[in-house]
């Protein structure tokens, strides 16, 4: 990091030079929440990827005015291939960030002082899928197979599941997976990583050359890490730990933000079609059917909720930390080497948000909630 800084500074004749100087001047001290003209507090949320229904609840909360009701003017900042949300948050550029717990645990060990204030996705969406013919029904069957993974922190549930089944990383041939599922469809990968809300649907939107119809769920074996016991906590809302401790206004604002976000997710779960449209209007170019599928699947990760949306389950947290400390990747490394600090998560704010919502007669459990049936079409239309 220091190297690139120095080099950029040296190429200072670039237009960057003036920018850098200005940055140095203004980097500190504008964290105090100030109110805009409508009396709302401006808040920025950093996503971990571009707009898509994986974040439907936040977009719905903006669109439905839930944040406004809580006195917040929320701007959603989309992610990109090289944007690390927890780093953006730790450097103070945004107020909150969405990221996976295992990815953030590594950043926390390297000094990012941030806190998981609401575990929005209770369940993991990561699976390893294979065609029925391959006969891969459990992690033990992965031995000797071509196994796909995106890497960059997406591989840990797979490795943990394999390790639990006694399959070493060396026993499989690990294949780097791309954004698309072509390698899987073409047979280069026997068991491919797939998010239930995205890649799994991509396969089901493709014509099976043997039948001339779309691939069916019956054609595919799914290893679900939730069932294998090696699921790790995924999308959570992260906040700045220092400011939570020192800045009462930020702490209150955090409760308000969580509250409105939960309302957004409840809206998305109950109105998947509308939520999918909201996300499309927010700039996502995914085909409509695929977007609806993603909305529905994201809701499945939340509802029905075991303890109330966002509440961090201590056992699930402990399991994620355990895997992060004890699972080795292909180079023998682990995500973290010591237990994370106590500030790594807190139920204080989400609990308060849930209490307030319950008082307002909002159902934060969704015990009766049932997903809709989404029929996928070729190409996701």
């Amino acid at each position, binding site marked *: 990091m220091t190297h690139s*800084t120095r080099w950029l500074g040296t190429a200072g004749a670039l237009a960057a030079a003036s*920018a850098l100087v200005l940055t140095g001047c203004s980097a500190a001290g504008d964290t105090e929440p100030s109110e805009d003209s409508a009396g709302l507090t401006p808040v920025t949320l950093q996503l971990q990827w571009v707009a898509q229904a994986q974040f439907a609840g936040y977009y719905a909360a903006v669109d439905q005015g839930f944040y406004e009701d809580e006195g917040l003017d929320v701007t959603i900042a989309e992610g*990109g291939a090289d944007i690390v949300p927890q780093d953006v948050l730790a450097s103070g550029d945004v107020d909150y960030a969405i990221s996976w717990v295992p990815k953030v645990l590594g950043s926390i060990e390297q000094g990012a002082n941030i806190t998981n204030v609401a575990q929005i996705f209770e369940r993991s969406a990561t699976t390893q899928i294979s065609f029925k013919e391959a006969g891969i029904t459990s992690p033990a069957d992965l031995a000797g197979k071509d196994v796909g993974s995106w890497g960059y922190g997406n591989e840990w549930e797979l490795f943990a599941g394999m390790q639990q089944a006694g399959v070493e990383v060396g026993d499989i041939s690990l294949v780097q997976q*791309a954004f698309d599922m072509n390698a899987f469809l073409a047979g280069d990968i026997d068991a491919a990583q797939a998010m239930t809300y995205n*890649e799994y649907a991509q396969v089901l*939107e493709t014509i099976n050359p043997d039948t001339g119809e779309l691939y069916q769920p019956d054609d595919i074996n799914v290893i679900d890490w939730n069932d294998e016991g090696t699921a790790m906590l995924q999308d959570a809302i992260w906040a700045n730990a220092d400011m939570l401790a020192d800045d009462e206004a930020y702490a209150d604002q955090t409760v308000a933000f969580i509250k409105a976000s939960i309302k957004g997710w409840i809206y998305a779960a109950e109105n998947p079609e509308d939520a999918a449209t909201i996300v499309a209007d927010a700039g996502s170019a995914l085909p409509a059917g695929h977007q609806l599928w993603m909305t529905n699947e994201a809701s499945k990760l939340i509802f029905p909720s075991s303890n109330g949306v966002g509440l961090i389950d201590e056992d699930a947290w402990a399991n994620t930390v355990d895997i992060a400390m004890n699972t080795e990747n292909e180079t023998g490394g682990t995500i973290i080497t010591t237990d994370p600090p106590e500030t790594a998560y807190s139920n204080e704010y989400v609990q308060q948000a849930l209490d307030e919502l319950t008082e307002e007669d909002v159902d934060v459990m969704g015990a009766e909630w049932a997903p809709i049936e989404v029929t996928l079409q070729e190409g996701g239309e």
Partner: protein
Amino acid sequence: MTQRMPRRILVGALGVLALALLWELYIFLGPADGVVVGGLTVLPRASEMAMPHLWVMLERALDPVTGSASAVPMWQAVLAASLFTLGISAVGWIVGVTVGLALALLMQRFTLAESAILPWIILSQTVPLIALAPLVRRWGAQIEFGAFSWENWMSVALIASYLAFFPVSIGALKGLGSPDANHVDLMRCYAVGWWKTLWRLRLPASVGYLLPALRLAAASAVIGSVVAEVSIGLRGGIGRLIVEYAGAAGSDPGKPWAPIFGSILVGLVAAGFVGLISLFLRRFRRGEVAA
């Protein structure tokens, strides 16, 4: 150089046609599963998914982007994105060329500056873009004075200029130093100052080096823009479309190709623009030298 225009266009069109024929020929002749030698794929698959027919791509480009009622035809979406990326690339190119020329002048004027700056200019290109892009965006996000606030597209343009300035500074430096020693001596005999020597001798002499450098800079600016768009997730340009359409590679094979043609289009327009510049500088071109 003395070829007439119609003939050059014909040859160019034939080249594109040959490429298209080659593509279709391989799809026709190539094995659907590719050629694998010892577990290594040496020739690509010719399946519909890996190499869709050109007419599939074309047909797909004419269809709407998605099935929703408000969706525009895909070629229109890609064209809009191409224009967006072209605009950012142009800003990046202009900034890059300006900075590159300024650096070259500085280095030509002061030998000390040359030994001080040149190594850093070369080193600057070894910083990986993926490390640079988020940093630039983060620093940019903190800039705000008065009505001006840094926007994400400016980060992308800055990265484009970071790539574009390099060939210009190197090419211009070489060009400015290219006049014969006896020409420079002649100027000195006449007691002509550095500025006038620059204007009358060095700049005209540098054109042959500068034009290829400008063309390289244009290509770099386009690549830089597309990569930086993906890197920081900027919406509106080709880079974003490439990412968003990639997921459809299996189920809608023609779709991911459209933004690729879009970026080719941007590159062609950028190169054509530099071609226009070289028309204006025609009388100074005594034979171009590869940068």
